[in-house]
């Protein structure tokens, strides 16, 4: 048993209650989830299906012609197992319309364009469907900044944001998601052969363990290295967490007036929900 293990039943109960109530606070009772074929979006979709009922959840499949065909197959497997509505929107033309015209070849830039094209579609369909865009970013990737700002990191509400990858796996097994989705190596599938762990240079298991001790338990650098974490690894991860703070905060506003949004104009989003 890992120190990171959660009580999946309790977490499921909390997150379904959270989704129902916070979506209702926005005056809605339906959800839109971009389904990638990966484990995070599968768990988000499964939680939404429990919270709102499968008929109220629209899962959107957003392939690009260079996407791995197994991604779409796995997304369908998840949607079928949940019994949710699906919609397929091929983003190739959207993406290439810009990327080809401007001759963008850097895979990171192309990947970001893909992630943002998907965001554009999800937000548009959220109007058509009358539902809120439910996020799929877990705590590990948010802390590491392994996401595209205003792309996959854009959503109205996020049930996974306080769960490390390890905990997402636990929840996926509890929610009985298809084994194909749980067992495959995590990948953003933004270019051929991509895997998260190769991109990051370390495994999710390593990152989860370190982030949990560093963030949740507030252990210092010295305490972490005394416990056997490699100093270079600790520094690399700590630097990523700090460097990517901008992805976790709203844009910075210069204070000029007596009362400034975000500084001393302080209201929750659930203000008079």
């Amino acid at each position: 048993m890992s120190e990171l293990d959660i009580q999946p039943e309790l977490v499921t109960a909390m997150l379904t209650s959270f989704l129902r109530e916070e979506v209702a606070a926005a005056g809605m009772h339906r959800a839109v989830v971009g389904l990638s074929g990966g484990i995070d979006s599968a768990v988000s979709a499964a939680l939404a299906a429990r919270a709102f009922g499968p008929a109220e959840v629209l899962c959107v499949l957003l392939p690009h012609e260079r996407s791995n065909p197994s991604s779409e197959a796995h997304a369908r497997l998840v949607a079928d197992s949940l019994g949710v509505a699906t919609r397929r929107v091929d983003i190739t033309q959207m993406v290439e319309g810009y990327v080809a015209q401007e001759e963008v070849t850097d895979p990171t830039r192309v990947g970001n364009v893909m992630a943002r094209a998907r965001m554009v579609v999800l937000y548009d369909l959220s109007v058509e469907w009358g539902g809120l865009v439910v996020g799929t970013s877990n705590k590990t990737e948010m802390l590491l900044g392994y996401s595209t700002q205003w792309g996959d990191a854009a959503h109205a509400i996020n049930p996974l944001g306080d769960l490390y990858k390890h905990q997402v796996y636990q929840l996926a097994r509890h929610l009985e998601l298809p084994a194909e989705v749980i067992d495959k190596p995590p990948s953003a599938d933004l270019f051929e052969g991509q895997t998260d762990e190769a991109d990051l240079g370390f495994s999710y298991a390593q990152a989860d363990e370190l982030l949990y001790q560093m963030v949740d338990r507030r252990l210092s650098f010295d305490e972490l290295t005394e416990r056997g974490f490699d100093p270079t690894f600790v520094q690399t991860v700590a630097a990523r967490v700090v460097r990517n703070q901008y992805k976790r905060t709203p844009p910075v506003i210069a204070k000029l007036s007596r009362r400034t949004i975000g500084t001393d104009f302080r209201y929750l989003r659930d203000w008079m929900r």
Partner: protein
Amino acid sequence: MTRSEYSSAPPLKNLRVLLAQTNPRLGDVGHNLEEHLSILRQAREARADLAIFPELSLTGYFLKDQTFEVAMEPGDPTLARIAEASRDASVIAGFVERDRGGRLYNALGFFEGGELRAVHRKVHLVSYGMFDETRDFAAGDSFRAFEGEKARIGPLLCEDMWHLPSAYLHFLDEVDVISCSSASPARGVEAGGQGLASERSWELILRAQALLLRTFVVYVDRVGWEDGIGFGGGSCVVGPTGDVLLRMDALEPGTAIFELDGNELRRARFETPLRRDERPSVLAAGLAVKLPGWHLSTEGDDAR
């Protein structure tokens, strides 16, 4: 406050308490008032003697700048409506109180017989982690019992319960029941324990206080979500021997009624007479030594 002032207070017989585990809407006092009134009608039908609501039950919890906007002064029509509804069952409900000096308090009103009879102002404001109460609230500086016609009640607000002297001062006042209204966020889902870690902490504290102070403890926590922070619920009644006599669901709103039995209180206090054997003078002497220059006043705290 001396004991002789209470010599005419009747001993506790049976007290039917309604626990109102509500989900207040943030800043929507009108909605919350209607919900209170509806629960108070239910209390009347169930012949309850006392209905207890959570912390800030009329306003919601993470108010931030809304604290100023929802604050109520004596004579506020919302408080008057609750008072009016307190003719059959007494009521403990949470609101933001504004005093003449413009200070805002996280307050608990005690309504009985058609009147607002007393107010408890949260003494131990909480400002750490996700909390920021000292930014918006002034702190209360005393623990005084609510003198009900059927019971003497020691009111506490959430964090008050985490500071030993709070319930202890009510113990010295020989209350029949400590009533703790709370807006406690649900947290701690690790597999090491069963249920929420926050709920386990609360149970430990409530049971220990009930056991040591030989009193009933009624805990009423709210439920619902405010910007991703969920409140735990799990409202409960603990008896004077530390046993949990009633527990409500975590996370779900609802009401429950429990009848406190005055004879249980008397038996528990006879079997283990901790109040009789308590020596507050030892505490007073110890404080005088440990806090030299302390003159039995809390006014110095204003400097904070």
